[in-house]
C-alpha cells in the first residue's frame, strides 16, 4: 500500500528540489553479491563486485578469482569466472521446490588486509504458482505509484489466479516482449505479499505495465507478451521491497533510512535469491 504517494501528490505543489553538495565519509569496501538459482534449467550466475563510495562515478570494480560453489545438500555445483566478476555454473541445472541451496564464496580478500574471507548463504526454493491467465488492456492516462515521471499511455497486464489461503505467499512479477526481458532491473520487478488478499480469487490485478513512451516497451500487433511470476521466499521479498523503498529515496514521510538485510554472511551486500518461475504468454493483438 503506497499510501504515502497519495499524500505526496499534495505536497509536490509546494515543494521544490535542487542539487546539493554533501561531504560524505568513505565507507569500508565490502563484497557485493548478485546471485540466483531459479527453477529454469540453465547455467546459473553469480556476480561479484566491490562496493564503492556513493559519489564514485564509474562501473563497480569486479572481484576476480573467487571460488564459488552451490550445493543442494546432495549435489555440489562448481562455478567458473567467465568475465571479470561474472561467474557461471559449470553445468546446467534446475532448482527444485523444497530444496535448500547453499552458496559458498571463497578466496576473496575484499578489504585487502591479507586475510582471505569466506561468504556463505542459503535459501529454500518455493513451489511455483499456478497462473490461470493473463490479459492486456490499454490505459491512456496511467500513473505508476513509484515514479511520478511514469505517467501516460500504458499497456497493462492483468493477472487471473487464486491465492493459496493456507500459506503466506510472496510474489514477484516481471515481463518480456518477444522473449526479451523488459523489466530487467530489480526496481522494475513488482513484489507483493498476500497479506491484503490472502486466499482471494484474483480477477484481473494489474501486475505489470508497458510504458508506450519507452522505446523498449512499445507493443505492436502480434507481439508475444510473457509474464514471469516468481514464487519468492519472504527473506527475498523483504530484500527487494527494502531495496525499492531505498531507491525511491527519502521523503518527509519515510522513516530513517537503514541498511537492507542480506542473507549472505560476513558483511557482504546483496542477496542469494532462490525462486521458482511460472511463465504465461499471450499474443498481443491491436484492434
Amino acid at each position: 500500500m503506497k499510501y504515502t504517494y497519495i499524500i505526496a501528490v499534495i505536497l509536490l505543489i509546494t515543494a521544490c528540489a535542487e542539487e546539493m553538495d554533501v561531504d560524505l565519509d568513505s565507507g569500508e569496501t565490502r563484497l557485493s553479491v548478485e546471485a540466483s538459482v531459479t527453477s529454469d534449467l540453465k547455467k546459473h550466475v553469480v556476480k561479484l563486485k566491490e562496493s564503492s563510495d556513493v559519489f564514485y562515478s564509474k562501473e563497480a570494480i569486479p572481484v576476480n578469482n573467487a571460488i564459488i560453489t552451490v550445493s543442494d545438500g546432495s549435489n555440489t555445483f562448481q562455478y567458473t569466472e567467465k568475465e571479470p566478476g561474472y561467474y557461471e555454473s559449470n553445468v546446467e541445472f534446475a532448482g527444485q521446490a523444497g530444496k535448500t541451496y547453499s552458496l559458498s564464496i571463497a578466496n576473496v580478500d575484499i578489504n585487502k588486509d591479507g586475510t582471505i574471507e569466506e561468504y556463505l548463504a542459503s535459501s529454500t526454493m518455493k513451489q511455483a504458482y499456478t497462473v490461470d491467465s493473463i490479459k492486456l488492456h490499454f490505459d491512456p492516462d496511467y500513473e505508476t505509484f513509484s515514479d511520478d515521471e511514469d505517467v501516460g499511455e500504458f499497456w497493462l497486464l492483468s493477472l487471473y489466479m487464486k491465492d493459496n489461503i493456507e500459506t503466506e505467499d510472496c510474489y514477484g512479477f516481471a515481463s518480456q516482449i518477444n522473449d526479451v526481458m523488459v523489466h530487467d532491473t530489480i526496481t522494475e520487478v513488482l513484489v507483493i505479499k498476500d497479506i491484503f488478499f490472502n486466499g482471494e480469487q484474483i480477477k484481473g490485478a494489474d501486475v505489470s505495465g508497458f510504458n508506450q513512451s519507452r522505446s523498449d516497451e512499445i507493443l505492436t500487433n502480434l507481439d508475444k507478451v510473457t509474464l514471469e511470476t516468481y514464487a519468492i521466499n519472504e527473506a527475498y521479498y523483504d530484500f527487494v521491497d527494502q531495496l525499492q523503498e531505498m531507491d525511491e529515496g527519502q521523503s518527509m514521510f519515510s522513516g530513517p533510512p537503514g541498511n537492507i538485510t542480506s542473507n549472505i554472511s560476513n558483511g557482504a551486500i546483496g542477496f542469494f535469491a532462490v525462486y521458482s518461475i511460472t511463465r504465461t504468454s499471450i499474443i498481443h493483438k491491436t484492434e
Partner: protein
Amino acid sequence: MKHIILSLSCIIMLLGNTTLLSQNRINTIIKTENTSYTFNELMTLIKSQSGYNYTYPTDSKLNQKRIHLGKKEYALDLLLDKASLQLQVKYRIFEKQISFKLIPKRSVTISGYIRDQKTGEDLIGASCYIKELQKGTVANVYGFYSLSIPSGNYTVSYSFLGTKTETRILEISKDQSINIELGANNQQIKEIIVTAEGKSKNVERAEMSVIKLPVSTVKRLPALLGEVDLIKTVQMLPGVKPASEGSTGFSVRGGNPDQNLLLLDEAPVYNAAHLLGFFSIFNGDALSDLKLYKGDIPASVGGRLSSLLDIRMKNGNAKKFSGNGGIGTVSSRLTLEGPIGKNKKTSFLLSGRRSYADLFLKLSSDEDVKDNTVYFYDLNAKINHRFNDKNRLFVSAYMGRDKFKSSDNELNFGNQTVTIRWNHLFSNKLFSNTTLLYSKYNYELSNRLGAAAFKWKSNLEDYSTKLDFNYFLNSNNTVKFGGIVTYHQFEPGHAFGLGEQSIISDYKVNESNALESGIYVSNKQKIGNRLTLKYGLRFSIFNNIGEGTVYNLNENYEVGGSTTYKKGDFFNTYTNWEPRLGLKYTLSPVSSVKASYSRTTQYMQLTQNSTGGMPLDVWFPSSPNVKPQKSDQFALGYFRNFRDNTIEMSLEGYYKKLHNTIDFKDFADLLLNKELEAELRFGSAKAYGFEFMTNLNLNRLQGWFGYTWSRTNRTIKGINNGKSYRSPYDVPHDFKAALSYKLNKRTLISANFTYSTGAPVTYPVGRAEYQGAFIKVYSDRNSYRLPDNHRLDLALTVKNKKKPNRKWEGEWNFSLYNAYGRKNPWYVTFEQDEDNPKIMKAEKTYLFTFVPSITYNFKF
C-alpha cells in the same frame, strides 16, 4: 476648588490608593510636615488644622504606633484611610468626632471570580494581592480565587497581565465573596501598580519551565500565509523545536512529538495538524490563551513525558453580542459570541474556519491537480451558564476535518472533542470541577482503482471523567487533589476491498481497549516571604482490557502465537508513582531561584517514524509487550527582572532521563500491521541543556528572544547496533526571536527569526550494484547533519482609523514568510543521475521561499 481636588486625587493615585472607604466626604485639607508621625502626633495635627477630635481604645498601644505619610497635603478622609490601613483599625466620623476601633483578628476568606469587564471572560491567572500583608493568590483556570487572611483593613489589588488592574480599599471582617471585573482602560493605575507593587510574576511564581501566552500575543506575530497558528508560535519558544519545517509536531526539551499532551479545554487532541502540518487545528479566534509546561508538570496532569500544552477556549462574551473574523489567503474565519437571555447568566461562542486551498489547485496547469479537492475546516462551540455564584456549567466542543480528494483517491482525517464541566463551590475555600471528556481522532483512506480498490479506516476514541478540587487552606497553602479515569478505544486499522473487481480482502488490526486512571494530591506551601514549596504525588494505573489479542514475541521479536482475552477481562496492569516537586526561593524583589523534579509516565504512543509525522500515524497503548515509558526531569533556574519588571529574564538548565524509550526497527512496517509490536525496539534516552529567555513587555516593543543549548540521544537495543545515537530532535544551538514593535496607534510591525543547527540525518556512505540498481550503505543512525536552518518572517498590521459611532473595526495584515528566501532543506535524497546512472547526486527538497500574504481581520 474642583481642580485642587482633582490634582489631589492624582497625587493620591500616585501613592497607590485609588478607592475611598469613607462614607461621607470630608474635604478639609490637612498639611503634613513630617514624613511620619506617631498616632498621637497625627491626631494632634488634625485637631489643630481641622478641629476634629478623636477617640480610640485605650487598652491598645495605638497611640505609640508610627504612621508613614510623606510631606503632602491630604483630604482628611484620605489621610484617615491611609492611617487606618497602616494601623489596621477602622474609624467612623460623627459630627466633629473621629472614633477609632480595632478590627477583631480572626481568619477570614475572600473569594470570587475575576473577569474581563468588556467581555465577561474569566481571567485565568489574574492575581489578587494584599499590599499590607504582601500576600496574594492567582485565579485558577476558571477565574476563581480564594485567599484566607486575618481580618483587617486592606488595600486589595486585582490585576491581569499588567494591563488590567483594579485596587480597592476594603475592610474585611468576615468571609466575603468579591467578584471583580477588570477593565483595560485604566492606564494611570497600571503605572502605579507596576511601580508600587512590582508585578514580578515571573520571579514570584513558584512554577518554572512554564510559558504562558495570551492569544493576542500570538496574533501579533508573522504567520505562514497569514494563518495565525498557536503551535507555530509555540515552536518559536526556547526549548521547543519544530519536528520539521512546516510540521505541527514539536519536540520539547529533546522529547518526541508524541510526548506532548495537547489539551483543548481539557480534552486531549491526538492530531493537531491540518494540511499535513502546515497549519494547526487551533483557530486563534476561538481561544483565549495557552500555557506550555516544558517540565514541572503539575500533579493533576499525567500521561505524557515531555510537556503539557494547555489551550483554553473563550467562554463567549457575556456582556454583549459581538463578532470577529477574517479573510485570509488560505482560509476565512468568523466568530460570533454573546450573552443568551436577559439576565446575562448564559453566554455562547461559535467559531468557524474553512480553507479554500482548492482554489489554488484550479490554477494549476496539471489537469489531475485541477480536479482535486483539498480543504480543511474547524468548528468551535461553547456555552457556559452561571446558575449562581456557586454553580457554573460549561459545554464546549470542537470538530475539524481535512479532506483530500482526487478522481481515484480520497483521504480525510480529523478530531472531535467534547468537554462538559461543572464548577461547584462547596465553600469559599473548596472549589470543585467535575469534567466529562470525549475525544476522537479518525481517518479514512480510499482508492477506487479496479483490483486495488480499497477503503482503510482508523479510529481512536477517549471517554474520560475527571474530578478536581482546589482547597485554599490558608494564604500559605493551596491544596489540590482529584482524579481522572479515561477509557481508550483503539481501532488502529481496518482495510477492505471495494467493488466486485477488488482483490483486497478484509484485514483488520486487532482492536484494543484500555483504562488509564490517575489520582493526585499536591500542595503549594509558602514558608516565610521568600520560600515556596510545591510538592505533589500522582498515582497512575493503566489496564489493558479485553477484548484483546496479544502476540507472543521472543527475544528476536518473532511472533510465536498469540493470546486472546475475552471482553471485559483486565488482562494487564501497570501502576506508577509519579512525584512532582518544586521550590522557589526569592533572592530579591526582582530575582529568584527555582528548582523542580518531576517523574512522568506515558502509556500510549504514536507510530511516528518520520520526523514530520503524517495523519496516518496511529496511537498504540502499552501492553504486556510494551512497557510504559517513564521520564525523570530535574531542572534548576534563575529568574531576574529588570526595568520595573518590564524585562523578564530566565536561565534554566535541565537534565532528563527517559526509560523504556521506543524506537522502530529499520524499514519498520507500522501501519496496517497486526504485529506492530514486533517492529518496536526499546531502550533509554537522555536529554540535557539550558535555555535562556528574555521577555520584553515595554510600551512599544514586546515579545521575546532566547537561546537554547541542548543535546538528546537514545540507546536502543537493535538499532544502530545498540550504539547510542542522536535523537532526530537533537539540535544543539538554537536561537529564536519573536518581536513586535508598535510604530503608532494604528501600525504594528513584527518579526520572527530562528536559527538552529541542522537536524541529524543518516546519509549513505557507500553503494553496491544489484541487478541494475544501487544498494546504499548507510552511516550510523543520525551521524550527519543537515545544513543549519534559519529563517526570517515579517509582518505589518495596520488598523483602520477608529470612527466614533462605528462598531466595526478592521485591520490589514501583510506578512512575508521566509523573507530572505532561505532554502532550508526539508529532506535530502540521493538519486541516480538520469543521463548517467553511474553517477549519484544529492538533492535537497525545500519548502516555501518568500511566501507573501494579505489578511483582513474585523471585529464588531
